């Protein structure tokens, strides 16, 4: 026992000395844990695909073409697909960073054990967010492949859709973990649904903002999912502009703020 290394000297290599890098161990723990139920995790990827077939192809047949980015008419299914890609990135990250983090925090008491190791609260926050981003990618990568197979990708800019989807997942996961640390009971998760369902339905996922009255449009423009939808839609349909950098910076700012709050809150809740 006396030979146990103290926290500051635990990192042998230069890699481990990076802030938060030790958190990779917690990600590894989740990967091992979920290996037994990989089918449950992976099957979540079909939900946005069902929506793509139903809304994109089914309702799309009733709509024909809509005005896409840059004012060009695009088939409705090509318009809605990048929106659903953003949703898949959001959902994958949101489910893990809220429900699962709450379970680990309150019931499994996982972080109490983790904090007894060289990992600190900031490592926990970073790795939980990192894991949720991986879950988001688990949903958005297959979706992107299906989009390509259905001929819904119009431009090589779509290569950037993957990092952009990861950015959506990052902003979602960081906000999700930060807010989850304030949750008092499972009933509070009703609020998560109360936010995520309207986000999904109203963030320009299914139709352009021009459908709304001006006031509503301005509000919707501030939602993080809307920014993600626009970034992905412009990239996939091949109409990128410098605007996208601002939108990406907005998402990154939400992510960084969430990360900072999450680390501090976990420390406050568990390191007395």
């Amino acid at each position, binding site marked *: 026992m006396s030979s146990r290394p103290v926290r500051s000297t635990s990192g042998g290599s230069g890699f481990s000395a990076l802030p938060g890098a030790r958190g990779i161990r917690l990600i590894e723990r989740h990967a091992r844990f979920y290996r037994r139920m990989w089918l449950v995790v992976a099957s979540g990827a079909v939900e946005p695909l069902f929506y793509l077939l139903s809304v994109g192809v089914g309702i799309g047949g009733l709509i024909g073409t809509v005005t896409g980015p840059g004012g060009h008419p695009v088939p409705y299914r090509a318009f809605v697909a990048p929106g659903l890609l953003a949703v898949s990135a959001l959902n994958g990250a949101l489910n893990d960073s809220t429900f699962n983090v709450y379970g680990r925090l309150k019931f499994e008491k996982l972080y109490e054990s983790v904090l007894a190791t060289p990992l600190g609260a900031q490592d926990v926050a970073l790795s939980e967010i990192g894991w949720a981003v991986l879950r988001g990618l688990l949903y958005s990568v297959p979706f992107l492949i299906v989009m390509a197979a259905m001929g819904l990708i119009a431009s090589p800019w779509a290569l950037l859709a993957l990092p952009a989807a990861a950015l959506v997942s990052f902003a979602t996961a960081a906000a999700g973990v930060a807010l989850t640390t304030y949750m008092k009971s499972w009933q509070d998760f009703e609020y998560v649904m109360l936010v995520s369902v*309207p986000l999904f339905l*109203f963030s320009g996922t*299914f139709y352009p903002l021009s459908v709304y009255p001006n006031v509503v449009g301005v509000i919707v423009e501030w939602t993080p999912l809307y920014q993600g939808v626009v970034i992905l839609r412009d990239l996939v349909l091949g109409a990128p502009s410098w605007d996208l950098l601002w939108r990406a910076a907005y998402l990154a700012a939400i992510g960084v703020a969430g990360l900072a709050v999450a680390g501090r809150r976990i420390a406050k809740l568990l390191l007395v």
Partner: protein
Amino acid sequence: MAATSVRVAAPGARPKLPGPLELSIRAFRCWLVMYRRTWRASIWSSILGPLFYLGAMGYGLGSLVDKHGTASLGGVPYVVFVAPAVLAAHSMNSGLSNAMFPVFGGIHWNKIYIAARATMLRPVDIYRGHLLFATMRIAMNAACFVVFLGAFGLIKSWWGVFLLPASVLLGVAFAAPIAAWAVTLRTQTPMNYVIRFGSLPLMLFSGTFFPLSQLPAWIRPLAYATPLWHGVALCRALCLGNVTLGAAAIHVGYLVALTAVGLWAGSRTYYRRLYV
């Protein structure tokens, strides 16, 4: 001391059991007590959820559909086409959410079923009482939404007075068999699969958001065979007023049959799971 008081209540003979209806209502009342204390938790998802869908799909997406022409919808605006289908899908979801996780929880989480088993309630009473409560919740959710539909002027016919019983029947047709199944489960994972591979595709492909004529011909018979399609077709006919008695009888008959099968199966599965 307790033994003597029991003796006094029933000297010599066995106490007479109340009738099956009375027993079911006793099981039902237990859920009612719980609901009275926790109703706030579900109020948002049971009322706002379908309104969100109606707003986004019916009005938002509908504005794009209507611009393109609504001949394939029978000439009505898209929101009128989709509103009764959202009601039907909402009833299905109410039925499933009240008959799946709470039933599983009755054995594994809060163990209400295990407690009820220690009383004079028989397994079938526990089942019927819970189903009665699910029916009440389905009816409450459906009634709210029907009122909204009426207020938005989306009910176009006096047949609309039958919307509530029709959607409750649809919800119970899902709840009865699903509860019969959920009570047999050892883990919760299969229920997640039912939502992901059952209710979600049903909601998306049963003629809810687009007419089945949009689907490839070979897959249409499958959609016609689903209970949700019958519920959607029934609600839509009632809403638009183009009811044909033959078609309505088939829809109602299908849903009643499904409920009856559920009731029969439930009395057996509950007995096997709960009888000691």
